């Protein structure tokens, strides 16, 4: 069975101006990511992988080319439409968790649900399900400062999946974690991909990720080098 594209980048170029210099972060990149897949975008620093992630999530705009997520082309959307679109389709996980410190784990996970039409009881159900999925139901009343780095990242993942987005996008989700926590997070993301059929796009330097993902996109100097099926050990 042929799977549809979850993400499609078509001849995307992104350039920045830094003082008098033009930096070509992405250079004519074309890429397809299938739905329900778990992919890693890997490459050295400055290779353009985070820029690609920013374009996929609509928080940055390509200089040329087009970006489609699901059936929607997002390139021409304005900021407010993009915000609405992200609320429905994108779950974001950051390297440094970026939880709101004054909110409990429950409230952090509830945050994207406040943008929906769900009532309080329905939001509670969704939040508990998301925290259940990441194994932190018993910590729902804890504030971020009361959680370990790994737990914070789990809450961030729960926040990313709470509104049932089309794709989950993770930017170096293990970058700030020790080896064991990193392994746990990668395992969790793989589980979410398999159990809930979530498309997960992850930027990472972490070579351990190769064991968990379906496909690795290698990038270098703003150019998409190659796509590899995961070779090292396959899915765990």
């Amino acid at each position, binding site marked *: 069975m042929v799977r549809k594209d979850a993400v499609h980048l078509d001849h995307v170029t992104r350039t920045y101006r830094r003082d008098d210099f033009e930096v070509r972060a992405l250079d004519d990149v074309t890429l397809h990511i299938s739905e329900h897949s778990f992919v890693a975008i890997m490459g050295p620093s400055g290779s353009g992988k985070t820029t690609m992630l*920013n374009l996929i999530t609509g928080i940055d705009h390509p200089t040329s080319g087009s970006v489609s997520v699901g059936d929607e082309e997002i390139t021409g959307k304005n*900021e407010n439409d993009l915000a609405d679109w992200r609320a429905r389709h994108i779950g974001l996980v950051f390297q440094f968790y970026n939880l709101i410190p004054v909110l409990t784990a429950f409230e952090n996970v509830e945050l994207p649900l406040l943008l929906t039409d769900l009532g309080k009881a329905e939001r509670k159900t969704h939040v508990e399900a998301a925290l259940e999925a990441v194994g932190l139901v018993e910590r729902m009343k804890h504030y971020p400062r009361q959680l370990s780095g790994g737990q914070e990242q789990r809450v961030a993942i729960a926040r990313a999946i709470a509104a049932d987005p089309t794709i989950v996008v993770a930017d170096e989700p293990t970058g700030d974690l020790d080896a064991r926590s990193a392994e746990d997070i990668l395992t969790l993301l793989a589980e979410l991909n398999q159990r809930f059929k979530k498309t997960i796009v992850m930027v990472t330097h972490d070579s351990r990720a190769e064991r968990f993902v379906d496909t690795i996109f290698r990038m270098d100097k703003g150019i998409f080098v190659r796509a590899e099926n995961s070779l090292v050990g396959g899915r765990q």
Partner: protein
Amino acid sequence: MKFAGFVLKNLFRSKRRTILTVLSIAVSLFIFSALVSLPTLANHVLADSASSVRIACRTKMGQAYPLPEAYKPKIASTPHVVAVTPDNFFGGIYHEVSDQFPNIAVDPENVDVMWPDWGFSVGGVEEFKKLRTACLVAEGTMKRFHLNVGQQIQLRGAGYYPVNVSLTIVGTIARGPAPSFLVFRRDYLEEIQGRPGRVDNFWVRADNSKAVPQIIETLNSRFANSSAETQCDSEAVFLGSVIGRFRTFFTLARILGLIVVITIGLVAANAAAMSIRERRNEIAVMRSIGFRSPLILRLLIAESVVTALAGCILGCGAAFALLKVFSVTSDVLGPFVGAIQIPPAVLLETLLAAILIGLLSSYVPARSAVRRKIVDTLRMVD
């Protein structure tokens, strides 16, 4: 409403800063509401006298010069005049100089006709008319000095009246021109002075308010070119001329109140800017998970407005309480201070000032934060 909890949680992110900001706004709005309320004294007094049928006659030469007592029957015979009451501002001292309150000598026979709106206690006026040393005392004065009806008091004269008067309290006044004052009989004052026959003012009551201009005209004409020409005015004009001396002070008070509010508005703006600057990253995160910039802007402004409103409630509450204290101890600060209240219009002005402080102090930094590129804020460039 579903964001109310979020706004409140953010308000208590830095408790100390929020409390200090609320307090600074409270102090500024307290000063603002108290100062802006000062002119209400004038408005209060003038509003009360606006429909009055009373006329005040004094000499054209000014308050320091008396009128002859002999004018009384001439004024009384003027058409439409129903009562004439001469008065002398005695200005006596009760115990200490700091215990001073206005005390006025008046002719007793028409006191209830002249001032039926003063709320004399039952039987007080009758006693006042019978007893030569009687006095009627405002309830504020009674309360302050723990006086009782039937009690004897002594006032030490000074200035134009270097005589002491021994008075018997025969009744009280509930709604006089000031919360604290006293009236006693002018015939008694005349007697102990050796009957000089001097009067500071003549209060004249007309039979209807339409006749007031005509009476004024008649009286001023009658005493024109005499040794003591009169300056008769309606009660509103007379009180307005007295209060008018304070107009500049009232204007300065308003300006000062405004300066204080603007200053604290800038302090609040600085606090809001600091708070928002610290949260730029969170704001970018919220935008990246789907919050629209206008919604975040509204949430940030709501925090600031809630802070300002909390300051408003505290500040207005303190001003209200203080003016209540003033009304109780008004003799210390002057007889009219007790008449100052925070009127609804000033409450509304203070509320608007609070909302403006909240809006303006947060709008610029909040707008700047929500307009920043998410990528730049999160430093998500690799």
